[in-house]
């Protein structure tokens, strides 16, 4: 095939990462430190997710990569190519067919199965970071379950915007114990975090791995009088007509015309193939 070890990383490194993954699965939501390696891509491009994927992939796997829900953006294409070259695994754009899915900033619309693994790229794993910059202190807060500060952040949201304006990376409590940053997925995806598949989170620069095992309780933090809401743009998809998927807003021209389309490109494509049509498709047909 080529001169790389399977999936780029050497076996010792993969073993080290797998140990971190197992520990993360055993203690849901806990950030496990690991010896993050230099990867042939810059930090912020998914080095953590790539290392977790590399340690997770087997030659039989089918790999899918999405970036903000799309299979065809630069980041997704690069990482897919990277594993095609270094692991020789099959790749796909269909959520249904993938066994390992690496993602940046989205959870696929399709319900994931128990034989699938989803790997999230994480820029900043520490949900308390912006309120308490000292790592020594945040670690202590996690270990003592002192999470009042998380609600201070939500309080600030409401006092400044009249509602909890945190729209992505919305903090959750996992298995009634650890408060976790679910990576910058939209809060629309938060309810999906309780799923059948294994969810792994990798932060390369920050050298942390954490996980949510299947069927684990994941609660989005909120106030009694300002309950959590999984919001999305109040439109159907202009291409496939879906009412239940997370939408991207696309500005069409200088006149301010816009369209809303599914951010999950595979979901949108499969719906259109099944004959669903949205507003623009109807106009084009007319």
């Amino acid at each position, binding site marked *: 095939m080529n001169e790389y070890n399977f999936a780029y990383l050497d076996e010792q490194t993969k073993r080290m990462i797998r140990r971190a993954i197992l520990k993360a699965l055993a203690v849901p939501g806990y950030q496990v430190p690991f010896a993050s390696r230099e990867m042939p891509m810059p930090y912020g491009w998914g080095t953590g997710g790539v290392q977790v994927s590399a340690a997770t992939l087997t030659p039989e796997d089918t790999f899918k990569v999405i970036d903000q829900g799309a299979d065809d953006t630069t980041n997704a294409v690069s990482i897919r190519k990277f594993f095609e070259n270094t692991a020789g695994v099959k790749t796909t754009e269909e959520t249904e067919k993938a066994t390992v899915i690496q993602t940046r900033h989205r959870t696929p619309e399709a319900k994931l199965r128990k034989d699938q693994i989803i790997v999230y790229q994480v820029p900043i794993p520490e949900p308390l970071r912006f309120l308490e910059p000292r790592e020594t202190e945040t670690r202590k807060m996690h270990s003592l379950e002192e999470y009042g500060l998380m609600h*201070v952040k939500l309080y600030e949201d409401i006092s400044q915007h009249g509602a909890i304006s945190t729209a992505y990376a919305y903090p959750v409590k996992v298995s009634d114990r650890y408060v976790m940053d679910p990576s910058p997925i939209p809060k629309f995806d938060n309810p999906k975090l309780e799923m059948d598949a294994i969810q792994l989170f990798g932060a390369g620069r920050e050298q942390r791995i954490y996980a949510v095992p299947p069927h684990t309780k994941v609660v989005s933090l909120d106030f009694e009088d300002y309950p959590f809401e999984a919001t999305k743009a109040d439109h159907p998809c202009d291409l496939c007509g879906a009412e239940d998927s997370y939408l991207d807003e696309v500005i069409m021209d200088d006149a301010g015309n816009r369209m809303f389309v599914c951010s999950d490109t595979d979901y949108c494509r499969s719906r259109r193939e099944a004959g669903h049509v949205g507003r623009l498709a109807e106009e084009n047909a007319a």
Partner: protein
Amino acid sequence: MTPLLQVKGIEKRYGARIGCSDVSFDLFPGEVMGIVGESGSGKSTLLNCMAGHLEPDAGQVIFGTRADGPVDTVTMSEPERRMLSRTDWAFVHQHARDGLRMSVSAGGNIGERLMAVGDRHYGAIRDRAIDWLGRVEIEESRVDDRPSAFSGGMQQRLQIARNLVTGPRLVFMDEPTGGLDVSVQARLLDLLRGLVREMGLSAIIVTHDLAVVRLLADRLMVMKSGHVVEAGLTDQVLDDPQHAYTQLLVSSVLQV
């Protein structure tokens, strides 16, 4: 009446140097004790040992907890001690920015302790924050402003509100009026006195300002080189000092 706080034989060394040594006293509910002494006399070290910020090398700090009665806070587990410092204890820092979250609104600063002990109703938390702003004489309209937009005196009052919102029983204060100009100091002292009486607080105030202890403290402890050289009723110690160092300290104050 049982003491709220019993300090027994506290000692803290920095290598060979003594931070404070052999300090013992009882503090009863509702009592305000001042600790005076020049810079480096060990008063801040002692305060930090009592408040759990520093681990003493010897001695006990026994606090009368609501649930379990007297407990040595030096040997209690860290989660318990941290819980204590969020509920029954309060610590007012000399510099408000050490005791406030400067990037969080005044309301959020006051609400933090409430949220830390499990309050989850935004409206109720906000109402209490506004109530406390009023009690420390900050306008309600400032509730969403950050402390960085406040004057020094307001920051200090906000710090006090943030500390007292959970109704603590013991307040540690480290030079609470230091760095404030005189008129602002007076207002703060008046406010503290009122709150202490209203809430029946016990307090330990470290300061080098004898005027502050005369107005706030019932009792006084004078420290020098890590040791307590004299202790007693505040006005008695200041008006009839027995120890050479206290006499020097009292006679060194400029009369206005």
